[in-house]
């Protein structure tokens, strides 16, 4: 379990996170939602250790992230997989080299073993015959899959995704959502996704944390979000007529 207690983070006098507390469970896809500037990315970067919080506690299975020595922090980071918004694949490396990179850095596997593992994860994300291609030669959806393959190649315990669907067409976005959810179950990971995509939230959000102005304004499941009367959530999630109608029909069905 990842537990966050009273997380505070400010930049140049502006407090971006104002005491956020929540917890994320194993085997679930957790979503962080909120408007632009609500503190989602800062929250995720604090969890990843890319930002050091001003105060508060982040615990990865009872290991306090900010209090770990360098060796333990490195160990923890090996247990983390991350899918960045733009993929963040290394341009100068081929797909195979990109995925192999963490294995080369942190394991003593032979080239053959690494090659097999790369093919295994590529197969898992439904990609074939792309090993020798460079990231620039792939479509956006394929790049996201490669990024997912790289994130899971070390069998992580924790998977973080920052806007995994941004820039993808709706059909590919659903494929990526389902893939992330399936992998979360298979690897029994804690997955935390930062998203603006309400389709994803409704589809795979087993736990949803809604941030507003750096404060946790609501949390619940993708079923509960239909029923909530929380004004901030309703204004944000049901701002489009389509989602308003989806909500109405869900509520009518469940009456």
């Amino acid at each position: 379990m990842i537990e966050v207690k009273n997380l505070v983070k400010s930049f140049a006098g502006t407090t971006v996170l104002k005491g956020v507390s929540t917890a994320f469970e194993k085997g679930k896809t957790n979503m962080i939602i909120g408007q632009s500037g609500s503190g989602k990315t800062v929250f995720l970067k604090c969890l990843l250790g890319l930002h050091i919080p001003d105060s508060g506690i982040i615990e990865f299975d009872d290991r306090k992230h900010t209090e770990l020595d360098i060796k333990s922090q490195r160990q923890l980071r090996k247990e983390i997989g991350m899918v960045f918004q733009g993929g963040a694949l290394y341009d100068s490396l081929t797909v195979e080299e990109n995925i192999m990179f963490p294995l080369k850095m942190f394991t003593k596997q032979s080239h053959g073993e690494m090659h097999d593992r790369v093919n295994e994860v590529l197969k898992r994300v439904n990609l074939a015959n792309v090993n020798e291609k460079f990231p620039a030669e792939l479509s956006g959806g394929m790049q996201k899959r490669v990024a997912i393959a790289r994130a899971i190649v070390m069998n992580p315990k924790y998977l973080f995704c920052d806007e995994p669907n941004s820039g993808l067409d709706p059909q590919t976005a659903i494929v990526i959502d389902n893939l992330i959810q399936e992998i979360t179950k298979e690897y029994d990971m804690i997955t935390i996704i930062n998203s603006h995509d309400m389709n994803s939230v409704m589809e795979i959000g087993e736990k949803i944390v809604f941030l507003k102005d750096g404060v946790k304004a609501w949390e619940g499941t993708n079923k509960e979000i239909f029923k909530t009367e929380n004004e901030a959530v309703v204004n944000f999630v049901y701002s489009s007529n389509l989602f308003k109608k989806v909500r109405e029909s869900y509520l009518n069905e469940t009456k």
Partner: protein
Amino acid sequence: MNYFEHIGKYFIMLKQVFKKPQKWSVFKETLFREIEDLGLKSLGIIAFISFFVGGVVAIQTALNIDSPFIPKYLIGFATKRGIILEFAPTFMSIILAGKVGSFITSSIGTMRVTEQIDALEVMGINSLNYLVLPKIIAALFFYPLLILLAMFLGIIGGYYAGLLTDLFYSEDFVYGIQLEFDPYYIQYALIKTLVFAFVIATVPAYHGYYVKGGSLEVGRASTQAVVWSSIVIILLNYFLTQMLLG
């Protein structure tokens, strides 16, 4: 941010760069790639510029010697001295600061704005050590060789200029080259080259690593990197000349 803050941040960066590589096999692989990118790919431009500038130095010297009392072998002597002491180590380093410096800043800067550096950090990799140390070692190892080549080709360029223009005899030129040859001057040039190589690898890396924004900022950072590398090289050249020859 004022200049002193930048200088402080630069030295803090160097502290992170000079750590033991996390995996020697990966370091070795990256080092060879950097030798190719920063060194081998600069061979052509260095050879081309050295040869022709060597020729121009010889022609200019010949055209400016009007007095019949000044021996013609001084053309070879002046060309040799000019090329070994200043033209090869300093002028070539400024050319490399432009070519390689902009490459280093734009490649690291692009990695920064496309979150590739964050991806390294999330994996638990010291990104500064991984990205910058191989560049420094590659530059320190390869640039002295490039500068030696520039010296050789510069003098050859001068020799051929004489042959093609008939401004001086090649025998006089060769005699001038051999006259009062002091190996310390080569040593002096190589010491300067090592210092400049360090500047060429680290100043642009600093500008690229700390860039914020998008492609426009990466472009601006590249320009700044070339300007600052050149300024630092010129200033260090002044102090090193004073220290080593003064």
